């Protein structure tokens, strides 16, 4: 378990640094417009490739990618934790209810057969595109509404599979012999859940939570490639637009999607947020592996 806490610290630390730097100290990083040589003459204008002065390079808008990624990291972590906790909470309530009352889920299985052929990110795209992609007349909704809508839709998308997982693992515990014995002593479902099910399933919940975090981030990144950014995509319909689609919040997935056209030119602006996202993916995976190992030990 020690390794788990080390990984957790590694996951939270960059977000913490970001919060202290951008929210508590309110520092706006200086933009790097030009590169000077030793005489003080201008050598180049932005973008710059990664160097010791700017570890992740500088993008075309003269922003240092390191700070962009750091500031995006804290938003991304916050969003995926909010979405996954909401989804896991809903699933725990519904899944436990279904498992205790032994409800069959044939309606769900009909739906799931159809949903199998439509990837989650496509479904999210269909639901989000009408509201989050700016039309030629501009947005009629405000930013908060779009954010909440985005979070709700992603939560709803994550919930069905999570509910099934939780229902199955709760049912697995309920089918054990000692539960039958416990029912003869106290036939109260609430008591059984708190005393007998919850202690056995806690780690399972955490593993599912991490899985949903992973899945949410993946869907968010796919959406960003499809130019649906978190909280709405600002679209330029004017006659001379250099960049057509812009994100409204610079979280990691939006940064990635925003710079995805620059893959062949300013590759560092694309790979810098990708490194951040891969870092989250790898740590989440290692954490859930560690948790699975700790279950197997018992």
């Amino acid at each position, binding site marked *: 378990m020690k390794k788990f806490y080390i990984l957790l610290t590694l996951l939270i630390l960059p977000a913490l640094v970001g919060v202290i730097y951008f929210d508590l100290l309110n520092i706006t990083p200086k933009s790097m417009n030009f590169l000077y040589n030793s005489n003080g003459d201008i050598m180049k204008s932005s973008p710059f490739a990664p160097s010791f002065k700017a570890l992740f390079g500088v993008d075309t808008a003269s922003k240092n990618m390191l700070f962009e990624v750091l500031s995006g990291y804290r938003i991304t972590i916050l969003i995926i934790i909010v979405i996954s906790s909401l989804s896991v909470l809903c699933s725990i309530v519904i899944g436990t209810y279904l498992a205790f009352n032994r409800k069959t889920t044939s309606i769900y299985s*009909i*739906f799931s*057969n*159809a*949903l*199998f*052929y*439509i*990837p*989650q*990110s*496509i*479904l999210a*795209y*269909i*639901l989000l*595109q*009408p*509201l989050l992609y700016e*039309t030629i007349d501009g*947005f*009629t*909704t405000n930013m908060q509404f779009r954010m909440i809508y985005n979070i709700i839709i992603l939560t709803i998308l994550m919930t069905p599979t999570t509910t099934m997982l939780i229902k199955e693992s709760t049912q697995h515990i309920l089918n054990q012999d000692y539960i039958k014995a416990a029912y003869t002593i106290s036939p109260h479902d609430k008591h059984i859940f708190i005393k007998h099910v919850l202690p056995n399933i806690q780690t399972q919940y955490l593993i599912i939570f991490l899985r949903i975090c992973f899945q949410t981030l*993946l869907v968010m*990144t*796919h959406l960003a*490639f*499809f130019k649906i950014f978190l909280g709405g995509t600002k679209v330029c319909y004017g006659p001379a637009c250099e960049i057509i689609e812009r994100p409204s919040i610079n979280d990691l997935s939006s940064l*990635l999607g925003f710079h*995805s056209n620059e*893959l*062949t030119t300013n*590759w560092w602006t*694309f790979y810098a947020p*990708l490194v951040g*996202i*891969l870092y989250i*993916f*790898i740590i989440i*995976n290692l954490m859930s592996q560690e948790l699975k190992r700790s279950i197997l030990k018992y």
Partner: protein
Amino acid sequence: MRKLFNFTMTIIVFLLLACLPALFDDQRFSFLNYLNALKSTFLYIFHPQEIIFTNKISHVERSLFPFFIEPWINTIVILFAALLLAFIVSLLFTYLLYVNDHIKKWYLKINTVLSIIPDIFYIPFSISLVILFYRYTDILLFNVANSSEDKALIFPILVLSIIPLVSSVTFLSSILDDVSRADFVEFSRAKGLSNIELYFKHILRNLFASYLINFKHIIWITLSSLLLLERIFNMHGLSSFIFDYGSPEVLFVTFILIYVPISLAIFMSHKVLFTITGVRGGLS
């Protein structure tokens, strides 16, 4: 009877999902609009040749059907070629793992790392690799983007096949461990069969069966990557109908045309599985 019921239900769910964009009329929630879209999309089932799609930018209207076939075939070819390639390569790979323990130890380590890394990394990274290679050697290994004369086909297939390959090698190697310790293999070895004979006569058949059992899961993970891949490679496939011309009736047709070939493939895989092993595929 049950199959027919499932089929109808799937189509109805597709219809309900395809009309979801119509829930919003000019960025406002409107259920009435949704019902109208449901009705009009449902009526298109009876005369599909009249479905038109509109280009979002130029507002040119065209009828969907002769136009739709080519990108559809394109997508399906890429999907199934990638699956087939992954299938063949993963069986060859397991052979390597079977004959050489040294490779196995190393490969499994690499495989765990690879299975963590998602498609959003593979696809751009492979493009970068080809471009880097081109820069230093002036040899363009593959076409990374479509042009009007020649289509990039081989490279997307290769990139897409990584995803099913990695996941299938993971479970094939664990099954390989189980099978090679099984009694009938030990017995055949005692009878004097060589390693190669053992692999091709006994083990391969078991691996093949387990691949088919997991076929549905493999298709599922490949499918979601496929649409992302089409976007990144800027290919004209099914994804352009979802993203560029996303009206309910076009979405509905797209969903059905994704559903039909894949469910056929899954059905075929169950049939093949049944004839080889006598096990009925229970996963559909």
